[in-house]
């Protein structure tokens, strides 16, 4: 964990030095930006549909992003994937003990940890209107919406924590420029409506002539914030290395309050270092 923080700090320090030799270009030009981000995070949840235990995963995070900016609009497309182990937060060392024997009289004791895995994926498409400002402004605001599909897919001995949400959110973005190299961003996103898929009350998916994926998605239904409340905020720091390359750090915090079929609450955090190319 410490090594990751040191790596992020070193990355930023080195690119600061490297960038001194490049010509400075105007901030927030009309451009395409494509980038790759890697990082770490944590996902914590309590899904009362199948368990009273708080589960926690600390997944690795990979994100691909593309931004397109015009005079008045900003568009973004993100692909995000997280993979990690998944265990009950306060019962990390639980072990199962099986006693097996066969008809020939052979017996065997088997012990192994009752662990699990966590996979999350997200595809999102955002469109924002830039509230009037000049190219030289140091503070800018954009408002808009985001269509996003997000999947939580924990696997293990228990089915808790699983959901898929195709949501439409309202979102506000702000950017503040310190100088030609440094800028910070922040955003707040609140889903307004979502097509939410959860395991049903009985926690099973089997249905006639349906594979497991189709069996899961047959439970999809449209819900509002009373059933799916998932505000999220991001904080970002970007460093412009030269006219084509930049780097940065992004922190994201999301809280989920799902009320169907039984309550599930989750908190997700991620911290990613990114490298992006502008053209």
């Amino acid at each position: 964990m410490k090594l990751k923080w040191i790596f992020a700090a070193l990355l930023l320090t080195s690119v600061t030095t490297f960038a001194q030799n490049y010509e400075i270009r105007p901030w927030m030009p009309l451009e395409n930006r494509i980038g790759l981000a890697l990082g770490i995070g944590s996902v914590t949840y309590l899904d009362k549909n199948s368990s009273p235990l708080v589960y926690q995963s600390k997944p690795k995070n990979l994100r691909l992003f593309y931004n397109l900016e015009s005079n008045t609009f900003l568009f973004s497309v993100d692909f995000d994937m997280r993979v990690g182990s998944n265990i009950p937060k306060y019962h990390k060392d639980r072990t199962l003990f099986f006693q097996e024997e066969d008809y020939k009289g052979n017996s065997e004791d088997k012990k192994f940890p009752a662990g699990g895995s966590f996979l999350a994926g997200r595809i999102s498409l955002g469109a924002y209107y830039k509230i009037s400002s000049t190219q030289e402004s140091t503070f800018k605001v954009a408002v808009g919406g985001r269509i996003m599909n997000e999947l939580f897919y924990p696997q293990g001995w228990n089915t808790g924590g699983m959901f898929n949400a195709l949501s439409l959110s309202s979102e506000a973005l702000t950017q503040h420029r310190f100088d030609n190299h440094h800028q910070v961003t922040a955003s707040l996103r609140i889903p307004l409506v979502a097509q939410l898929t959860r395991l049903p009350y009985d926690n099973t998916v089997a249905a006639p002539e349906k594979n497991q994926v189709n069996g899961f998605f047959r439970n999809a239904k449209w819900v509002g914030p009373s059933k799916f409340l998932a505000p999220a905020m991001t904080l970002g720091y970007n460093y412009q290395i030269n006219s084509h390359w930049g780097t940065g750090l992004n922190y994201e915090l999301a809280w989920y309050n799902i009320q169907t079929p039984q309550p599930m609450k989750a908190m997700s955090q991620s911290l990613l270092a990114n490298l992006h190319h502008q053209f």
Partner: protein
Amino acid sequence: MKNRNLIYSLVFAFVGSTFMMASCEEELIGPEKANTPTNNFELFWKTFDEHYGLFEVKNIDWKAIHDQFRSKINDQITDEELYSVLSDMLVLLNDNHLNLYPTNGTLPVFPGGVLSYRNGKLEILKVQDDYDLEVDKTYTSGYQQLTENIGYGKLPNNLAYVNIKGTDGLKQVENQMEKIMADIADTQGVVLDIRGFYGGYDPVSQYLAGCFASSRKLYMTTRKRNGPAHGDFTEIMEWYVTPKTAKPYTKSVIMLTSRFTQSAGETFALAMKQFDHIITLGDTTAGSFSDNPNFELYNSWMFSVSVGDYRAPDGISYEGTGLLPDKYAKTAKSDLLNGKDIVLEKAIQLLNQ
């Protein structure tokens, strides 16, 4: 220098934000209730009360079972004592699908296992001693294990032996069954062995049964708990078996069953029993049809619960009793140890008649 200070400040802010939000985690997620034997017992009882699908079918007074065992519970009892109480409660439900998984590494997983009445007493059969695929392979030629759970070979006198011991992915099963059905199409009869079919995914069983179906037939209805009252159930779903593959097998089939044929193996058997060209031979099936997802206790132990009410087309539930074979036969442990499978030999004999 100014830039570096800014960067360090931002990194510090990120770290600070993370720690700040982590400290709010309990408020945002909710606390876990105290891990005490009393709380665990009550949660175990309540989870069954709100999810078990067979109280009405089995005419079980679950409240009375609570009262029967509650007096044995206090916050000073050991894990062993709690394990003993919870497993005793499971046995009373006479349900092969109920398992208790202690997670302290010292208490063994309690298998609701395969239940059998012997001398008027309910016993858990821990070891299957009436079937061994390795013995059965010696009766065949060219046995091939095509998937993890499906294999087949040829028997003398133009017969085939097909063994199913579970369900794999539906696409994989579809691909492999096309090959098998084409290969056995010209045989005089098939021995279909599901004595080791311990479970899997019901829609795959539905497909497999379709490989031996002569027409479309209703074979099962299911409903599952969808609320806390014992009568809270989803709408009934109807399961039909429909001919599958280019060449569904409609000549004589002898299907071998045992007390260990259960879960998706048992829903498969129920589908197959709808057809006249299929005769079942062996022992009664386990009597555990329903899906059984895992739930958890505050001490992190896990347990499975049968959440469904599965029935034959005539409305009869075979949960807890199992499906009777058309012809009873059983291979003894001593036979298996001598490399003989009496049930398989009888099936071959029947097909040769």
